């Protein structure tokens, strides 16, 4: 799936919320930057992130994770 495909279906409001959410997380020293990057990437996908995917993004990135 390309980056453009990922963004299909997300309204500007949803994207705005994700943007603000990421800013808030980055301002929090307790959350690792690479975990935020993975979570942001996950959330910008068209489909709603599942709990297990969120968990993996934050704590258990796959070994071949790009980030």
């Amino acid at each position: 799936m390309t980056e453009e495909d990922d963004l299909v279906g997300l309204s500007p409001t949803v994207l705005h919320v994700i943007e603000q959410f990421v800013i808030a997380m980055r301002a929090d020293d307790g959350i690792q930057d690479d975990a935020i990057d993975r979570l942001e990437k996950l959330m910008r996908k068209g489909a709603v992130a599942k709990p297990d995917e969120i968990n993996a993004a934050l704590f258990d990135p796959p070994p071949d994770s790009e980030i």
Partner: protein
Amino acid sequence: MIRIKTIHIEEFRGVRELDLDLDTMNFGICGPNGTGKSGVVDAIEFCLTGDVTRLSGQGSAGLSVRTHAPHVDQHDHPEKANVTITADIPSLGKAVKIHRSVKDPRKVKITPADSDVKGVVEDLQMHPEFALSRREIVKYIITPPGKRSEDVQNLLRLEHLEKLRKSLTTFNNKRKSETDEAERNRRQAETDLRNALKVDKLDRALVLEKVNEKRETLGLQALMELTKDTSFKAGVAASKGAEVKPALRKAVALADLSALQSSIKGGEPAVLVKNRQAAKSVLEKLRADEQALTLMRRHGFIKTGLELITEDACPLCDKPWRAVELRDHLRRKLLSAEEIEQLLEKLRANINAVLQSLSERIHAVERAIQYGQSLKPPVQQVLLAAYLKQLKNAEIALNDFLKDHSRVEPAAQAVAGSWWSPTTEQQARIDECHTAVKALPDTSAEDEARDILSVAQDRYEKLLRETKTAREQKARSAIAQKVLDHYNNSCTAVLEGIYDQVANDFSRYYRVINREDEEKFAGKLTSAPAKLSFDVDFYGRGLFPPGAYHSEGHQDGMGLCLYLALMKHTLSDKFTFAVLDDVLMSVDTGHRREVCRLLKSEFPNTQFILTTHDRVWLQYMKTEGLIVRSQSFGGWTIEAGPRVWDDHDIWTEIQGALDNDDVAKAAWLLRRYLEYTATILADNLRSRVEFRGDGNYDLGDLLPHVLKEWRKRLEDGEKSAAYWKRNDEKEAIAAKRVKAKELIAKTNAEQWAINPSVHFNEWANLQRQEFQEVVGAFKELLENLRCENKGCKSYLYVLPRRGEAEEMRCNCGTTNINVKAGT
């Protein structure tokens, strides 16, 4: 969004065959209840979405589109029930033909099948909020905040945010649950080490003291500190057979069994009693309260159901459903159990505390059984196994309940009685174990010290591992909570901005409708995670929920205004089409005109299809220029469907009667029409009419006073223009006044008040030609009272509605006559 040009309906609901020509303009559908109006609305909804809310929404159990959408006589022939809509798509500059048959409601034929055209139709299908019925209108007004949040977010196309919130919440709850479990394991490891060393608490100094006692027995150097790398066994020489780990080390086994015995004898701890009783109380209440239990069961069942939806069918009965719709349907039910969710949160804490104690006891009994089996002869384990089974069943029941809240009964039983004390027979087996272990030959002090250090070492390492795991889980849980909090806060902040805009538009629309009495009205939408509170001003006395003090009519008005504000924000210039199905039935006469003006002035690019059972309402819409075209249904039969009465133009209808030489009918039509128009004009011009308590005014009561007022208002306007030296304006008004005088004279209407015998009652006795002149005179006269702008043509009205009159104006602003005295 689209603008509808034509609708063709065949054998659908109560309609046999019907064609409506809307020509992309606002359209009114009028008829008494049961004449087929809503059938048309259903047909539009069906054609555009494949669904009919009345057959699939709340309270429609046992109904289905495929079975019940066809006309009753075509019940077994869904292929004959079809709807075709032709429409324009302004945003694409394209026309489209949409056809759908009840035979296959999910299949739609779109012509042309361009991807952008299909996209527009799919969007309508996903979000059918373009159709608003009176039943639905209040859902935005009188509804719990949790439900409103979901409804409003659906309408704003923000359901993705709500789904994301639920996903993050589930993730957070799972992390909490795993943290609880890790903490239970850590405490268990702590208890085990405490038992091995025979200490009451795990204090570094105390542990070192006990370990060093054993080390001293073995002649080893005392340990000076306790770190994660500390080895209690450092320097211990391996004893004979030390490569085989013994199943029973007397000293440790005695310590474990003594701890179990003391624990039982000490009675159930007060904290455990408190948590068990609290859990018991709630679970028993749920068990006794059928409704709460149903909600609870439903809560768990629906949550499971939601996870199982993977295709377009119900996972339970295989009934065809769109997956998206089925999920929404289930979520609506889930949200109705919001209070249950709060209850569960408290219950979870109580149950976790009980589980902690259960886990420790299970562990202790398992050890007792293990020791008993290691003895020769082994201690009979049947009774202890039964006790262990009882404990494990309780643990399973409580864990099951935490995973699936429908499993109330076993959980209630698990906390109903105390499992703390085993039966006397079971207790005897534990004592027997203890006695048998105690009777084993004493090991040497060195061997005992070696055994204790070995077991303590294992348990210490386990404690370190469990502590590390618990710490990691706790840290992850804290991050999960932070992530959820950041999301909720970000979401709330962004949504508050949106809701402020929506609330501003809503308040403005509502003030337009109610400017008479609620000029300072304001509404407020307050967002919180999963909630959207809605409060409105009540005559300056503060903000309250809409249902608190406002009348039903006002609530209907609020529902419409909130809907319009939400649609405007959601679709912006794509809000080109809406069906309002009898949504304003309780709006009073004084506010109807304002509703028409609101729709016309604020949404000039939206095509409204409005249904009403009130003929006067329809006329208001026409008079105010909201609709040009309409269709009236005069009755309905099962064989023929709606009886269509074409009333596109009252003057055409009157002329039709005259052409048929039916003066009586023409006279009746003119009189009814003038009665209705005179009511509007009397109100518009603030005419001084003789008051009647029963509110029944005939034409003679109204029209002479209306015309008198009209002339006076024009005179006032003329004087004011003269005062302000606006000569052009003065001349234009004067010309209008002279024309009015001439036309009024032609109708002879002013004479009615003076000489009632020369009256409209005589019209029916006139000759066709004579009455033709009367019709022409009134038609011309009514034109004189309208704005001359062809795009407006509204009847002029006086503002303000109370107090000294200041202006007489039209809807579009082309005509605005200052009628205030110029001195």
